[in-house]
């Protein structure tokens, strides 16, 4: 059995760490899949899917690391007008941070629930907000 659902989120700031763990848990529970896998995949190229501990200080350290690694004022090649968009790119920082964080995560499903460590939480991280964002959650496996 395969169940595909979406999580929608409107970010309100330029960079935002949004914890989607409970929504993913609910989707897994309602899917009817008892044993298998759940994949959490972002639909965007300037967001990331992160698994980490849900502490503000951890979020801060991760954000600071990425900001040092991908500074806002570097001479990015993407900072120019894009004719097929009719708009200026200027979001390389988002693309590069999103690439470093990765676009998905996966967890086992057993007994109809996610199997994960006690400190593991799932985040949608927006690096080019504010924007309306979408995450796919696909649950695959046996129903018995």
């Amino acid at each position: 059995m395969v169940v595909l659902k979406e999580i929608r989120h409107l970010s309100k700031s330029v960079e935002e760490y949004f914890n989607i763990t409970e929504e993913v848990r609910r989707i897994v529970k309602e899917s009817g899949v008892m044993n298998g896998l759940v994949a959490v995949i972002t639909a965007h190229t300037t967001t990331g899917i992160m698994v980490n501990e849900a502490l503000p200080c951890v979020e801060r350290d991760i954000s600071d690391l990425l900001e040092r690694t991908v500074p806002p004022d570097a001479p990015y090649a993407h900072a120019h007008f894009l004719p097929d968009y009719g708009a200026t790119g200027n979001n390389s920082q988002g693309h590069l941070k999103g690439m470093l964080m990765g676009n998905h995560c996966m967890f086992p499903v057993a007994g109809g629930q996610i199997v994960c460590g006690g400190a593991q939480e799932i985040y949608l991280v927006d690096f080019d907000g504010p924007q309306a964002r979408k995450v796919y959650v696909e649950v695959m496996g046996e129903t018995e």
Partner: protein
Amino acid sequence: MVIDMHLHPIFYKPVCTDEETLKFRMDQFGVWKQGPMDWDEIFAEMDVCGIEKSVMLPVDLTTTAGGMIISNDESAELERLQPGRMIGFASVDPHRGDAATELVRALDELGLHGLSLHPSKQKFHPDDPAAEELYRICEERNVPVIMHAGMSWEPDAPAKYGDPLQFEEMIMRHPDLRICLTHFAWPWVREMVMLMIKYPNVYTDTSVLYLDSPEESMMRLFTVDMGPRWFERGFSKQVMFASNTPRFRAFKLKRALDKVPMRKDARDGLYYKNALRFLYGKEYDSED
């Protein structure tokens, strides 16, 4: 407070009622890969950089393309839905036979706050006699005119109509009409500066993000294309913050402008006081 003096509400969901109309707007404006937006997403973008009000600019292309990039009725409807945050302008194609009648209807019946013209898309010279009656109508009502100037990314928009020197004679004929030539008339920035220092009723806006990052672009505009003190010394009451949404993202332009050194009074003018004076024709000493 920040007022965004230049946005095109092409993707605002309440006026995205059919795909054919939306496709016309996108193809005429030359913007793709974006879709209809709800108010909460629109306001999130405004709120993140403190934009309290935005001015919506329609473009009437009746005789040049057979349609409109937002009609006057749509502009009025969007303002009715969000009074206080959205300020609607009118647009009329000067070559329409009923141009003057439609402008009077838009200002007097719909209550729109000024006239938006686009000489390059509407293919008229700013001192074309066909437009003269429209300027007179605005002057009589003490409402401003925003005219797209400089380069336009829109398809089928010859730059010769956007040369700021083309505007001088109509400016001279209308010394009491508040006129904004958009985009700093880029690439004719110094010609635009010349017009502002000659004519105090002439304004421009900051929606210039044609090359480089926002930070590089704004710093170059305010410190290289112009001398680094020209704005605050010469015409600090004549430049207005503007994003040209959906072409450029407002918060990125605002973030870039925050980094350009200038006096506080000049910055206040840039972000909102000049817009209030341009829109309503009087000085505002506070954010009230």
